[in-house]
């Protein structure tokens, strides 16, 4: 094998109208959910480009992560809508690197300042919950009947606070 370390094979690029077809393709195989046209028009907005990214492995798109910024009471939070990597590319630390990339971007962001990242995880998905907990996320509540058609219907709410210059939580 080559001398390249796994991390050097992973790279990121912002979602744009031009590569949106790749995002659609990934979403169609990664999630049991259909995303609306609004979802796709939101993630290509320039103000979220740091938080809506394609994940590449050896220059091939293998995953995607998309957030939106929610502002309430003068505080801005990042809501992680999607984060996933194609099955054959899992267990290589790509997800962790991606989440770390996202956290770094959130820390560095100033206008607006991001105070937290949160997301929903279907209550049957223990692996995902553990993954986020390893990266400093904590369960802060339960959203009943979050999913309308797929079961189980409930979702955990997981959140990680962001402090400026936060030290890496690993």
């Amino acid at each position, binding site marked *: 094998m080559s001398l390249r370390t796994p991390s050097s094979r992973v790279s990121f690029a912002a979602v744009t109208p031009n590569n949106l077809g790749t995002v659609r393709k*990934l979403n169609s195989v990664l999630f*049991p959910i259909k995303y609306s046209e609004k979802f796709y028009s939101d993630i290509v907005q320039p103000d979220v480009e740091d938080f809506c990214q394609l994940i590449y492995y050896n220059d091939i798109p293998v995953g995607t992560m998309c957030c939106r910024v929610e502002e309430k009471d003068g505080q801005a939070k990042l809501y992680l809508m999607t984060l996933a990597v194609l099955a*054959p590319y899992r267990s290589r630390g790509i997800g962790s690197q991606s989440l770390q990339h996202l956290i770094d971007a959130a820390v560095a962001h100033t206008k607006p300042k991001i105070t937290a990242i949160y997301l929903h995880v279907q209550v049957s998905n223990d692996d995902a919950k553990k993954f986020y907990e390893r990266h400093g996320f904590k369960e802060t509540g339960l959203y009943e009947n979050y999913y309308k058609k797929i079961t189980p219907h409930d979702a955990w709410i997981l959140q990680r606070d962001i402090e400026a210059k936060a030290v890496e939580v690993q």
Partner: protein
Amino acid sequence: MPPAGIPPARALPSKESSLFKEVLHYYEDRQLKKGLKAADSILKKFPNHGETLCMKGLILTHLGRREEGLELVKQGVRLDLTSHICWHVFGLIQKGQKNYEEALKSYTQALRFDKENMNILRDAAHLQTQLRLYDGLVETRHTLLRLRPQLRQNWIGLAVAYHLSGNLAEAKTVLEQFERIVKNVPDYDVEMSEVLLYHIRVLEDLGEYTEALTLLDANAKSRAIIDRVAIQEFRARILSKAGKDEAQQAWQGLIEQNADCYDYYKGYLSSRGVDVDAITDENRDKALQSLHDFSQQFSKASAPLRMALELASGAKFAELVQPYLETRLEKGVPSLFADLKSLYRSPEKRDAIESAVTALLSTLQHPPTVPSPPDTDPTEYIWALYFLAQHYSFLGNHKKAIELLDEAIAHTPTLPELYMFKARVLKRAGDPFGAAKNMDLARTLDLQDRFLNTKAGKYRLRAGLVEGAVELFGLFTKKDAQSPSHDLEDMQSLIYLTEEADAQLRNGNLAMALKKYDAIHKIFDVFEDDQFDFHGYSVRKFTVNIYMNLIQWEDTLRSHPAYVHSAIEASRILVRVYDDPKLASKPSSESELSSAEKKAKKKAKKAEKKVQEEAKKANPNATNEDKGLDVSPPKDEDPDGTKLLQGPDLLERAVKVLKPLTTMAKDNVNVWIAIYDVAIRRKKYLQAVQALNHAHMLNADSPELHIRLVDFKRRWLSLSEKPSEDASLATSSAILKLLPDEVSVEVFNSQYLQHHSSRADAILAAAKVSRTLGAPREEVEASLFNALNADTALAIVAFLSEIRSPREEEFRTACQGKFELSTLFLSPADLAAARKAVVQKDPVAEAVEDKAETIS
């Protein structure tokens, strides 16, 4: 001009005489309006002054009033036939019209009356070069040098003229004299450096290697030649040709500079007595050892490794190819198959590659639903699948290729190459619609990739979707262009024009097809015109070496595949319309405008109008603008090409486009078949037989030739009045050789069928011939059903439909059974549906329609 010799009609009083000098002056400075005013005031008093009329005409032409200008110039010349100014002006105008022959005649006239005019001599030299009149060129350049020996470029001009006329020895003499007398050359002078390199090239071409090397070494040392790479390359090449031992070291030095240049390795090996194009078992190991050493020394270079694959055989090849494949698959080199394809000429190498990649694949294999094993690389697996899919499709196993690609797509659905190649496999298997759809899937993954966009457009054209294709191309063409097609034509995109013309032809729109082929021919005319400026520029700037390559390239310009193809197709269309003039008036079903097309047309018109208005706005002062002498292309008066199909000169136009092919593509059977088809209809019997003879020499068994032989014999026998005796004799003795008199055409045809009974294309040709000979339809049909072969099957369907066979449907169904992946044998209705399905709004979005949960 000596005043004594002025004819009375030309003489002007001193006031007007100085006014005329002003006209010349204003023209030189491009102060066109002032020049026009001055000319007018002379003409007020002397309306018949030829030279002034010519100057006024010239100025008007520059101002864009071309017709008016031309009229005045002609009038002026008539009024003063002995004025060099009049003839010079006339020549300038003709040159602007690209009428080089006539222009040269005018220049020759001008020189009669002013033998030593430098400007006219120089222009004449350029025209002589353009027209390849090299003897005259030598003479002109001689005169120029005699008049101004102090101008450096005049020496080079003469040397180049001798070189072009084939007299290398004289070129050498001129260069030697020049170098002897030239003085005060500054250090690092690029021009002098080019001249010296040119001199060395001349010596090399003359075979005077020792002299060449002496000159090269002396001037390299004195730094008179400043192109270091050229010095090394010239040196290595000439040393090799001279058979000197130092050649090896020279090539080695070049390899050290650029370890990825194949020519350097070839030169190196040849200096060690190995001809890589004719490797033998004796020197194979020696060559491989050298390449191995180089690959150790330059670990990043690919060339020595790849070249070793070319030279190795047997077990050694297997041993070398495995690491070559592995490193590139691991790295993910998409072009790997294209790189290795040429090795497939050897079945042994082909099999070795197949088993190496198959073995590698088995170690990487894993299901697409789980994480890949930690010690393997999932992308390497994808690239291995991709490679093997290309391998199998290349060998004609399209089903296996699709299986492999589907496996790869299930694993990694985001790699455009996978969809692109799936499209290509489907295309090869005869499904242009599935192909276009898959190419579009690849395109939607990355909209800013122009390569993907172009491919998707091309595949739509292959599926007959002209409009849909142009729409895609439009995403990347200039936004302010009249239409995407116009922009691509302006950009001289031969591939686009060829593909659209072919698509229009398949759709039965002969007019548009011919229009696009015509556009291709015009582009080649432009290529030819483009060299004109270099006849002056390259000599003036001393860029002679590259200029000689340009001239060579221009001389073989029309051997370009795009020209050959479009000339043959255009000629076929013209012949078809000649045989059946109804084709020109009958609008084909495809060309009837749908409402969408009408809308598009309106839009194009609007855009055109806007462009024109903007052009006007940008140039409010248009009257004083210099529009130059070159005639710009006229406005398109025939947007759908219908006028091209009309006119009495169809065959003459075919002759014109085919003419260059008799020398540029004389090894192409189809060229001679096309020439025959035109000649026989023009009743040029000798020419027709000669074309058949050429075709016969190239491929005696050609089915198309067989059809023509019978055609000729029938036409010849039915001639009531044979052409004049000489030609007639020559013709009949020529045809005798190809189709002897004692054999009837019927027997000739059945003999041909017997000899080629296993070839589908020959069966079709024989069937066509028996139909023209009046065989019953049932018999013709029966013979065709023996010919189930994918390449010819489609042509058979077309022919069955042409003879209105009731068994057409049966044949289609049989084909469908035999070529399962193909969609080309669908019924016309199903074909239309398949074509429509290609253009979807968003293929990915459609695929996920069935998801249960929706998130907004």
